[in-house]
């Protein structure tokens, strides 16, 4: 670094991401007087829960709460303690050294003594022919956005987890029939969600099957399918396909600077949030290949905030010690 950065231009902590992990880290670091800057994302603020409906398993809301409301509450709570929440994207980061550098989508640059990476995860694509071409023309990843357009139509959901069940159940409000296509013969979803989906008369399960192709001229009309048991090929007439087969951690911004696990998530030290570089911490889905819940992400954001507090206190102590050692006592 050639140009001089004045200490008062260096933030204590910049948080990248604004799901439950990012906002919880913001609440904690703001209450610790660290004046966090949160890069919430220009169009992704609030994270994945912004595209969900009822959240029934976040403790403290006995009647449930809408996903977007939960996130707006978290944002308001972080702001209440002085978090500087910006609807901006980080487009480049330099994480080595004692002062980290974050370039913004708007062109500005932030400097920070510590960074919390809470970038979450992005939906996974099937990777089959026709999927990209028909995306927005019957292929969708957001039931709450697009379900409305499939009134009285026959559609399909791919996936066997909670997200797939939630999407399928939501889509029954509009569609005349919802097929759920799953590669195995049993669901990964929680019992309560699985039971609800199985009890819904508009939902029909297609077990042990995968989608091999999405077909249609300008609009989805048919799926190519294959049995995962005996490789038999078949087809299914639908006008919409909702894909809910899981997520991949969003690590593109920093994957060349930090160690990753075999799952592609950020590597952290034990139960802490410490990544392979000092002063760089991780929270939420970006480090979590297994649990991926709003509440685990929130807990993980708290861990990162506390780790940042200790890190800043320790580095401040050693800086002070160095300064004392360098200057002869004058008293």
């Amino acid at each position, binding site marked *: 670094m050639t140009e001089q950065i004045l200490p008062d231009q260096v933030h204590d902590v910049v948080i990248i991401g604004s799901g439950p992990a990012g906002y919880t880290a913001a609440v904690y670091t703001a209450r610790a007087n660290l004046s966090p800057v949160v890069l919430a994302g*220009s*169009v*992704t*603020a*609030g994270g994945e829960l*912004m*595209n969900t409906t009822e959240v029934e398993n976040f403790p403290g809301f006995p009647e449930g709460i809408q996903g*977007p409301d939960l996130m707006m509450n978290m944002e308001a709570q972080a702001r209440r303690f002085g978090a500087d929440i910006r*609807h901006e*994207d980080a487009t480049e980061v330099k994480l080595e050294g004692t002062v980290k550098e974050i370039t913004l*989508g708007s062109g500005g640059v932030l400097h920070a003594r510590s960074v919390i990476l809470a970038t979450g995860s992005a939906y996974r694509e099937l990777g089959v022919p026709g999927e990209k071409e028909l*995306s*927005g*023309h*019957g292929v*969708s990843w*957001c039931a*709450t*956005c*697009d379900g*409305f*357009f*499939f009134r009285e139509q026959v559609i399909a959901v791919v996936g066997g987890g909670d997200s797939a069940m939630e999407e399928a159940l939501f889509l029954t409000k509009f569609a005349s029939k919802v097929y759920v296509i799953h590669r195995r013969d049993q669901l990964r979803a929680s019992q309560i969600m699985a039971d609800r989906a199985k009890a819904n008369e508009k939902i029909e399960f297609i077990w042990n099957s995968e989608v091999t192709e999405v077909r249609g001229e*300008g*609009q989805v009309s048919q799926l190519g399918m294959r049995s995962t048991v005996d490789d038999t090929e078949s087809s299914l007439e639908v006008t*919409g396909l909702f894909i809910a087969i899981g997520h991949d951690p969003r690590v593109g911004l920093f994957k060349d600077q930090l160690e990753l696990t075999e799952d592609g998530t950020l590597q952290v030290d034990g139960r802490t949030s410490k990544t392979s570089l000092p002063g760089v911490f991780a929270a939420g889905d970006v480090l979590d290949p297994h649990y991926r819940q709003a509440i685990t992400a929130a807990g993980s954001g708290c861990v990162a905030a506390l780790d940042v507090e200790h890190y800043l206190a320790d580095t401040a102590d050693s800086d002070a010690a160095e300064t004392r050692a360098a200057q002869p006592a004058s008293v």
Partner: protein
Amino acid sequence: MSDLKAVTDATFEEDVIKASKPVLVDFWAEWCGPCRALTPELEKLAAAHKDKIEVVKVNVDENPAIAAKYGITSIPAVFAFKDGEKVHTSIGAKPQPALEQEFANVLS
């Protein structure tokens, strides 16, 4: 609320098809979270290129005819119209720089 002009089934022909400038049409709905996230980005885009283009919004709930005519099945969807013809489509909420790139041919 948004600064962008609201276009309806009744005014689409006049405001979009017969417009002298290229028009970006944002198909949206109240219940669509990503649509709300996209609006400020489109407003920035509109302000930055107000000499070249117009950016308008169509509420798909209230204007089903236009949404059906253009086969909208996913929102937010932004369609670019030039001389009454649809020339480009962008699906999903994207930041302003990404929109600039996608619609480069109508912005230049």
